[in-house]
C-alpha cells in the first residue's frame, strides 16, 4: 500500500511545531518561483539569491505567526518579495530579461512552420521583451508576476504588497503602457 502524500496543511502544522524537515519540504516546493519572483523584483541574480535566502530564514522564524489553513505560497512570496524590494538595484544595473538561445532558433510551430513565420515570431518575442524592459520597475514586476510567473491576483498582491484591486488596475495600466511601447497605443 502506497504511503499517502503529505499535505501542505500537515507540513505547515509540523513546521509550526518546530519540525525543520517539514519547513524544508514546504520551501523546496516553492523555491524556484520564489527565486524568480525575487529576481523580477530585485533585477539581479545576486540580490535575488540573498533575498530568497534571507526570506527563507525569516519565514522559518515567523512560522508561529502563519495562519493555519491559509495557503503557504503567497505568504512565502510576500516575504521573498519584500526582501527583494529592499535589495533592488538601480535601473541601470538591472539584468535584462533574455530569451533562451535555443528558443530563438526553434520555430514555435514545429518543423513544418515556414521559415519566414518562425523568424517573425522570434522577432516578436525579442521586441516584446525589449518593450518590457522599457517599462518602470513596478509595471514590469506586476506583469512579470501575473503573466511570466503565472501568479494569481491574490499571490501577486501578496508578493508586491498591494491590494488585489490595485493589482488588477496596475496590470491593466501596465499592459496599456506595454502596448504604448510597442507603438500600438491608440
Amino acid at each position: 500500500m502506497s504511503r499517502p502524500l503529505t499535505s501542505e496543511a500537515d507540513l505547515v502544522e509540523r513546521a509550526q511545531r518546530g519540525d525543520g524537515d517539514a519547513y524544508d519540504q514546504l520551501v523546496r516546493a516553492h523555491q524556484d518561483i520564489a527565486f524568480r519572483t525575487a529576481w523580477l523584483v530585485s533585477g539581479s541574480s545576486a540580490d535575488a539569491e540573498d533575498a530568497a535566502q534571507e526570506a527563507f530564514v525569516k519565514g522559518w522564524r515567523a512560522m508561529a505567526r502563519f495562519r493555519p489553513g491559509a495557503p503557504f505560497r503567497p505568504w512565502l512570496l510576500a516575504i521573498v518579495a519584500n526582501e527583494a524590494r529592499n535589495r533592488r538595484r538601480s535601473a541601470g544595473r538591472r539584468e535584462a530579461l533574455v530569451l533562451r538561445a535555443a528558443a530563438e532558433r526553434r520555430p514555435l510551430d514545429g518543423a513544418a512552420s515556414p521559415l519566414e513565420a518562425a523568424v517573425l515570431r522570434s522577432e516578436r518575442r525579442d521586441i516584446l521583451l525589449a518593450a518590457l524592459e522599457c517599462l518602470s520597475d513596478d509595471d514590469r514586476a506586476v506583469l512579470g508576476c501575473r503573466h511570466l510567473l503565472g501568479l494569481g491576483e491574490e499571490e501577486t498582491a501578496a508578493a508586491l504588497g498591494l491590494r488585489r484591486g490595485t493589482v488588477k488596475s496596475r496590470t491593466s495600466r501596465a499592459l496599456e503602457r506595454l502596448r504604448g511601447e510597442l507603438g500600438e497605443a491608440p
Partner: protein
Amino acid sequence: MTWRPRRGASGQTLTWRRRRGAPGRILNDLARELEFLAAEVDWPDTPQLATRAAIPPRRRRARRPRRRVAIAIALAALVLATAALAATGVIHLSSGVTIHRVERLPSVDPAPELALGRPVAFAEAQKLLTLKLPPRLRRPDAAYASDVGVNLLYLGPRGPHAVLAVLREDGAGLIDKLVYTSTRIRRVHVEGARGIFIAGVHVVDFLYGPGRRLSQPTLLWTRDGLTYRLESRDALELASAR
C-alpha cells in the same frame, strides 16, 4: 490582426502594425502573448539555498528575555547542505581576515555558541583596547572580553540588533569568511578606514576558537592595528560606512 513587426531604417524598432478591435480584447491578447513568452525566458538558475533550521521557530507567547544572546544568532541555526568547498577567489582585508569565494557553503554547527567572552563593563572594555567607534556604536548595551579582543552587543526594539567584535591583529589568522560567489562584496570606508561589506548570509570561521557559524551581513574594517567586525543587517548605516 496579426502581430507583424515592422523594420525601420535603423533596423529593429518597437513600432508595430496597429491592431483593430476592442481595447480590452487587445490587452487580453497582449497578456496571452506574455504568457507564451514566459516559456522562452532564460530565467537564472535557482541557486542552492538553505532552508532547514535546527532551532524551532519562536512562539509569540514564549518570548525569551531580550538579552539572551542566543537570539542574536537564530540565523546561525540553519543547517546548510553538506557540500564540497570549492574556492573560486580570495580577498584579504588584512593579515588576519580572509574572504573566500565559494560555490557552496559548508555545513555548520546547527546550534553554535556565540562565544562572546566574559561580560565586562564597557569602561573596562575600553581600557583593554583603544576603541575608535563610529558615533552610533559608542553606547553598547553589553560588553564582553575575550582572549583576542572585545565584543560589544547592541539591542534593538525586538532583541539583539548588532554585534561588534574588535580584535587584535597579531599576524596570525583571525577570521575566515566563506561567501557564495554570487553574494555582493563591496569595498567601503568607515570614517576614513578601509573596509569590506559582505551583503549576504555567509559562513564565518573564528580561527581563534569559536569556530564556524552562519553569519548575517557583516562590515569589516581595520584601524590602528585592530580589526572591527560588525554583524548586522544594518551594519552600513550603524557604522556610517560609505
